[in-house]
């Protein structure tokens, strides 16, 4: 079996990261993880966000329960080589 945790997050803070020369080399984004939402995997309710769930190895289509106020609308992932301590983490962003 494999392990997955899904989060619904909203951006709390976005900041440009610069080097010593003041050139922008990236963006630092801080998220707030939001309260539990229904987790749908392959069309089945498989618990909620913010907790690790146990699934079979392989391909899974993931989305969240209503309201549909998140992006992307669904994600297809391949679960493999995970552990219960280090599950695959998948993030949806609140819009």
């Amino acid at each position, binding site marked *: *079996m494999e*392990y997955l*945790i899904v989060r619904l997050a909203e951006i709390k803070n976005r900041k440009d990261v610069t080097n010593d020369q003041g050139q922008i080399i990236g963006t630092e984004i801080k998220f707030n993880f939001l309260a539990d939402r229904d*987790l749908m*995997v*392959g*069309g*089945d*309710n*498989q*618990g*909620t966000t*913010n*907790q*690790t*769930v*146990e*699934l*079979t*190895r*392989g*391909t*899974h*289509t993931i989305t969240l329960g209503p309201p549909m106020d998140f992006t992307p609308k669904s994600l*297809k992932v*391949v679960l*493999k080589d995970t552990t*219960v*301590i280090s*599950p695959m983490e998948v993030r949806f962003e609140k819009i």
Partner: protein
Amino acid sequence: MKRFNSRQYRMLSLALIVLAVAGCAHYPKNQPLEDPSAAVTYDFSRFDQQTDADETFVVLAFSGGGTRAAGLSYGVLKELKNTKLPGTDRSVLSEVDVISTVSGGSFTGAYYALFGDRIFVDYEAKFLKRNIQGELAGKVLNPYNWFRLASPYFSRIDLAAELYDQTVFESASFGDLAQQATRPFLIINATNLYQGARFEFTDPQFRYLGSDIGSYPVARAVAASSAFPFLLSPVSLVNYAKPAGYELSEKDQDALADYWYNKRSYYSVYNNFIYAEPRGHENHPYLHLMDGGLADNIGLRAIYDLYVRKGVRRKINQGQIKRFLAIVVNARADNPAKIDKKESPPGLITVGFKTATLSLDNYSFETVEMFKELAAQRIRNQATLNDCQQKIDQHCRNKFKINSLKGGDMKLYVTDLTFDSIPLESPAPGIKGRNYYNELPTTFYLPADQVESLIAAGGWLLKENPDFKDFLSEYQP
């Protein structure tokens, strides 16, 4: 020359018409599914109950083995009824949620699913102590049935299904089970002769065939499940063109992408996809089903599928199950070997029989061990998570919390009941020694005293099983 009078001509004509009709006999066909958006009928999801009722989730797997298996599984049901959950007035039997059956075990499982506690009143007379195979032989020897059997679309298994339908299952259908919608949810297993894959009599399986299971007789499913090769013939199903709007579920589509990641998932869907695809009804217009034991003789594969990817997995991930108990009733008879007492090698019949049964028994053993390892893995992971968090709490200043596992600290028990657990000498009054049970044949007739011994053995095996004892001793209401 004697002439027939008009009355005799009428009688002769009537007889010829009856025989002609008999000769056109056809097995009852499964019906097409008219509307794919129609509410699912016979599926585990329809048997849901209030969430806290699934805190204790009990599944039973009844193996094949003719009346030997039917009697043993019946004995287990009796013991479950007589065993109370500690601290409650509920029996363990009232907590049984799913029964998966094969061959002989299908009679007991189906009877209980349909008629509930009535099984303890009349099942012994209606099935266990009847000479079913004698009655079947009688039907085959009935001259009227010769004309029916002459039809290429009607065979011995159809006679058997008629007998079971009329005298055991009271013409019940899966629609009747769906209407009851009360646990346990019954899964009758047969084998698809084309791929050797397991075929289960449930709505999702029938939908792959564009068929509606609601009107399908339970007796025909039991007949398919117990269609022993050569003695009985296959049960046939029609694979219909899929109605407009039909499509594979998202989960099935994901599984078809998993050839390199998860071949179990891939093939469990692929074996059905060949029927469900747009041209499936042209390439594979029929299925022919035989004894479920050819694919899985203990009925545990259906439980495995529920646990890893179907209804039970959903409940675990929703945190509904606190304790999970699987009871595997395996009526395998390990006939004491006589073949290695002779210097000359065994003959063709012995070799043929052993060839048919050896791999089946080995596969059953591996399936049980695999399922036990799956349960052990879950328990280990739960312990690992708890231990890691304890170490962090003990040694780290920051209050870091590892993500918790949905379902928390579930307790899992896999109880495997076989004649191997019975000592060679009788361990208790009413229980014979091991060899007595191993020498019982695989037939659909056993004398009443042998049936009584099997019922007693089923109860004793369950009561004495260490995993079942652990389940009871650790149970807290």
